[in-house]
């Protein structure tokens, strides 16, 4: 191999000594035995052995790359990708309008960012998706498991129990009309205990724990191969108040974004991140924009922004590589994330004071 030494991941001290001893390319070193190398260069025998092992490993993986056919390199034709996309599942949100604008639901193998003001429903959507990802395949789901990384402490188990029960009831209604073996069997496995046991919860208190957890995720995912959804609820919070150094923050966030994308691709799962909103002063006007700056806007593939307009919640698909920009209304019922009610719901409060947010009247399931 004619590859130069500088391009190998050797430790800097060893590399400097090798170059000083006159070795320029990998080929020169591979001919030499470890003990001879150590004597000539002035490094320990263990270091020499490690160097040779690194070089050999790198050269082996290089060869297939040169030959042009490799399992390791991810090369597809657009046709193969098209077939893959057709068979790929979506994670439904139970709000048909939202599923429609997303093209079927939250797509797998992509990172989706959900931004919104506090209280608009980002965590509700995350909890809903953690339940929905487990819907069996015969009911149109992906039958996967979920990882929930919580940085804000807003995960409420009781709420997930309510959502899961509502989902189970909903599926029972559907199964009632189908009556076949497959559906009945799938329903047996879809119990509250199973649903809750397949949501893996991590509570990170600051950005260091978040970075550590994301670093360890690939190992975790290899052990839990059925995970199809990774949720990071609150990617903004740990980075907004503890970090004074903005360049460090940008670097860490970009690294995180890259890791998320590679996780989504390697393990074929969907990644959801929730973000906060911040005010931007623009020509004496205060605008609400997603937090973490302009460069973070490039991180996620798909961006959803939730906002209020009078008493109705709206979701806007702001950025997507394949779907059109659009806005739809939605609501959050006791059963979870749902389509907005068609008729105007009456306010529950008797006060005449203006309240922007009122719970929709409880409707029977």
């Amino acid at each position: 191999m004619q590859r130069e030494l500088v391009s190998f991941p050797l430790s800097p001290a060893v590399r400097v000594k090798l170059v000083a001893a006159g070795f320029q390319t990998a080929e020169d070193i591979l001919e030499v035995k470890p003990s001879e190398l150590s004597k000539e260069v002035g490094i320990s025998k263990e270091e020499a052995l490690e160097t040779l092992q690194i070089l050999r490993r790198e050269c082996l993986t290089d060869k297939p790359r040169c030959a042009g056919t490799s399992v390791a390199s991810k090369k597809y034709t657009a046709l193969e990708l098209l077939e893959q996309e057709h068979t790929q599942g979506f994670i439904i949100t139970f709000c048909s309008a939202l599923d429609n604008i997303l093209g079927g639901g939250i797509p797998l193998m992509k990172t989706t960012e959900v931004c919104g003001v506090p209280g608009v429903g980002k965590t509700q959507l995350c909890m809903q998706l953690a339940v929905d990802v487990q819907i069996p395949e015969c009911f149109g789901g992906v039958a996967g498991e979920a990882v929930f990384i919580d940085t804000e402490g807003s995960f409420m188990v009781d709420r997930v129990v309510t959502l899961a029960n509502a989902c189970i009831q909903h599926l029972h209604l559907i199964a009632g009309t189908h009556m076949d073996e497959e559906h009945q069997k799938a329903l047996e496995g879809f119990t509250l205990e199973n649903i809750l046991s397949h949501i893996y919860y991590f509570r990170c208190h600051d950005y260091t724990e978040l970075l550590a957890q994301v670093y360890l995720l690939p190992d975790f995912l290899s052990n839990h191969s059925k995970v199809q959804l990774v949720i990071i609820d609150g990617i903004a919070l740990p980075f907004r108040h503890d970090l004074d150094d903005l360049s460090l923050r940008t670097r860490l966030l970009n690294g995180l974004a890259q890791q998320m994308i590679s996780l989504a691709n390697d393990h074929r799962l969907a990644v959801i991140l929730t973000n906060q909103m911040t005010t931007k002063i623009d020509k004496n006007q205060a605008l609400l924009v997603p937090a973490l700056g302009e460069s973070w806007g490039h991180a996620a593939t798909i961006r959803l922004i939730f906002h209020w307009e009078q008493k109705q919640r709206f979701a806007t698909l702001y950025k997507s590589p394949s779907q059109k920009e659009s806005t739809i209304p939605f609501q959050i019922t006791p059963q979870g994330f749902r389509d907005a009610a068609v008729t105007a719901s009456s306010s529950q409060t008797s006060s005449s004071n203006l309240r922007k947010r009122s719970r929709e009247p409880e409707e029977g399931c």
Partner: protein
Amino acid sequence: MSNKKLRRVGFSQELCDRLSRHQIVNCQDFLGLSPLELMKVTGLSYGGVHELLYMVSRACAPQMQTAYELKMRRSNEQSPAFLSTTLSALDEALHGGVACGSLTEITGPPGCGKTQFCMMMSVLATLPTNMGGLEGTVVYVDTESAFTAERLVEIAECRFPLYFNTEEKLLLMSSKVHLHRELSCEAVLQRLESLEEEIISKGVKLVIVDSIASVVRKEFDPQLQGNIKERNKFLAKQASLLKYLAEEFSLPVILTNQITTHLSGALPSQADLVSPTDDLSPSEGPGRKQDLLWASQSEYLKILILLILNLSRKVGSKGFHEWEVIYH
């Protein structure tokens, strides 16, 4: 966890010394560097650096729990999940009362009864569990000097005349409420940081901060550009401290906030009374950002209660009778 010193992670002394020469002492410093920088600093190969990263990540990453385990733990816990407010409509709206392990914010116009509410909750927290209390002590951080012990005793006496039938019991109850008067942001922060030890040593079951807004508004003028950042930092630090205490010790934490008036559109005569977290109109100036940051701390864990008092009703000697509850 992020402050864990690298020495305790299992690094060799030599490596620790080498790293400390570059000011890398704990996990936070280590994980903030890129692999290339780490290679330069430690003198190891790429594989070696990844092994170190793995060790450090293992040391500070959180434990995994399934949602099922969380649920089981909650139902097995001896302590109650809510502190009932004894106002049936409010309890129903909150699904049980003030939630333990969460922050609850009470907001309203001046004079509507926020401090009275806090005093009532203090009495309730000291009651034994068979009466709906938490049987513990209360930490009351008062930034407005609005707390009066006489009123506390009056509420207790009139509300529970059968229980507080002797002078002794009243005095005992009042000795369980620990009042801290803090009048500056710095003092509040210091008090919150030292709260953990107090909670453990005195068996505290309720923390009240009345109010968070007054110190902030006194010290940070939102018109000055640099102040917004400082104010945000302070609010965020405060919120994360309180959240940590609430979660760690399963305490209810009650905060009171003030409101700001927002004049909507071209109708200056009709002022919408809106809570700071509600105000989303673009006509507001730089004041928006910090309120949003505070509000964004209040994700589901923090439940916002807006008490808009019908001004014709007087707060009786028993505390509160009926309230119009508008919640979100």
